[in-house]
């Protein structure tokens, strides 16, 4: 099974580990991620004002190119997923906008692509039971907080990945690889997103809420699907630790890094070295690395 894949700009650069571990894991469970021959940045934000069609031309271009290569498109980054999926809905459902946007990008794209997140492939196409069967090193005892953030789930009418209030897809994946998912209330609350640029105080507060919520419920490590979440959580831990004496920073990693580990990829290929808060001591302690 080959599935066309849109990496997005972040995975191509700072978050290379996310990309590599995902590709390797895909091979272990029986599919191939085929990077689009031609792609551009999706714009990293879905414009909320409906008259802002210009902002849709970049993601529409991605979609139009992808459609030439197949009927499906997968991504890893939550933001790319959100932007592409919502843009696709516009291209499919709104004839007028479609023709304007197609005019901008000089294409004839009709919204017929289906956008599926990597997690959805694992759940719906591969099946978590097959993932489980492929596990070589079960992550037994690893108390993991799955942090969804906003973009995988909202807004609900375009969601696809799971119930926007009570998602379980991440936890199901973690169970399949033998880890112990930790339920924590802030798993669907915002990390502060792009305010990282203008208001670090605010980001520290919001990300801090996420992490204390996870830590209070016993998480030893947090997985995400979004480079921006990953960055914000990581960056906020220093301030958080100094503000509240009893908070101990924990590794914030991509879910594919854990997946890859469980599927038997060598730990050095998973990109853990890029993390600010090193995962290795924890993994070693648990006998996983």
């Amino acid at each position, binding site marked *: 099974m080959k599935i066309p894949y849109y990496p*997005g*700009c*972040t995975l191509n*650069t*700072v*978050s290379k580990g996310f990309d590599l571990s995902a590709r390797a894991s895909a091979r272990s469970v029986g599919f191939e991620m085929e990077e689009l021959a031609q792609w551009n*940045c999706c*714009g*990293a*934000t879905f*414009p*909320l*004002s*409906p*008259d*802002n069609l210009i*902002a849709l031309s970049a993601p529409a271009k991605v979609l139009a190119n992808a459609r030439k290569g197949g009927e499906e498109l997968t991504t890893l*980054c939550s*933001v*790319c997923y959100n932007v592409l999926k919502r843009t696709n809905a516009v291209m499919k459902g709104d004839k007028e906008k479609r023709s304007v946007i197609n005019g901008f990008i000089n294409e004839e794209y009709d919204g017929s692509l289906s956008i599926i997140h990597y997690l959805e492939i694992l759940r719906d196409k591969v099946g978590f039971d097959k993932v489980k069967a492929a596990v070589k090193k079960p992550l037994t005892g690893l108390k993991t907080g799955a942090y969804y953030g*906003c973009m995988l*789930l*909202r*807004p*609900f009418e375009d969601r696809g990945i799971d119930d*926007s209030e009570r998602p379980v897809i991440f936890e199901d994946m973690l169970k399949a690889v033998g880890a112990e998912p930790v339920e924590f209330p802030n798993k669907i*609350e*915002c990390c*502060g*997103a*792009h*305010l*990282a*640029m*203008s*208001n670090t105080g*605010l980001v520290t507060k*919001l990300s801090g*809420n996420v992490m204390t919520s996870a830590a209070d419920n016993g998480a030893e490590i947090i997985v995400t699907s979004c*480079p*921006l979440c*990953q*960055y914000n959580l990581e960056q906020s831990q220093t301030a958080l630790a100094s503000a509240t004496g009893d908070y101990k920073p924990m590794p914030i990693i991509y879910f594919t890094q854990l997946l890859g580990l469980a599927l038997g990829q060598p730990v050095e290929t998973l990109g853990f070295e890029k993390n600010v808060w090193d995962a290795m001591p924890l993994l070693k302690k648990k006998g996983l690395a």
Partner: protein
Amino acid sequence: MKIRLSGADIDGPRVKHIERVTGEDLKHCYQCGKCSAGCPVSYLMEVPPSRVMRLLQLGRVDDVEAANTMWVCVGCVQCYARCPKGCSVASVLEGMRQIQLRKGTGPTLIKDIPIPFLRKAPQQALVCGFRKFVG
């Protein structure tokens, strides 16, 4: 506080402009407050989300523009996802931000970006941030 209401403000061109740019019908909001209740940055906003809707219903565009609300909104869409009436305060705020940015009257929040940020932050943060704050 005393507000002098007039039809010219309530149905005025500025409100209509916001409705057109944002695609939202402000009348739909019935002031349940769910958006303000769930918004992660509501506590920081000078005018919380549900009040944004109310002030705009009253035609008080200036009051909303003067507040920090649209600049601290993180765009998490929680307000929209849970609004029982399907209103998107997120879109209203983004639209109002766009209006200001297009006019060049918005504050310049990202004059100087910290170098370490530039070096380490994911690309998407930059792209997104510039989109949100520069238009």
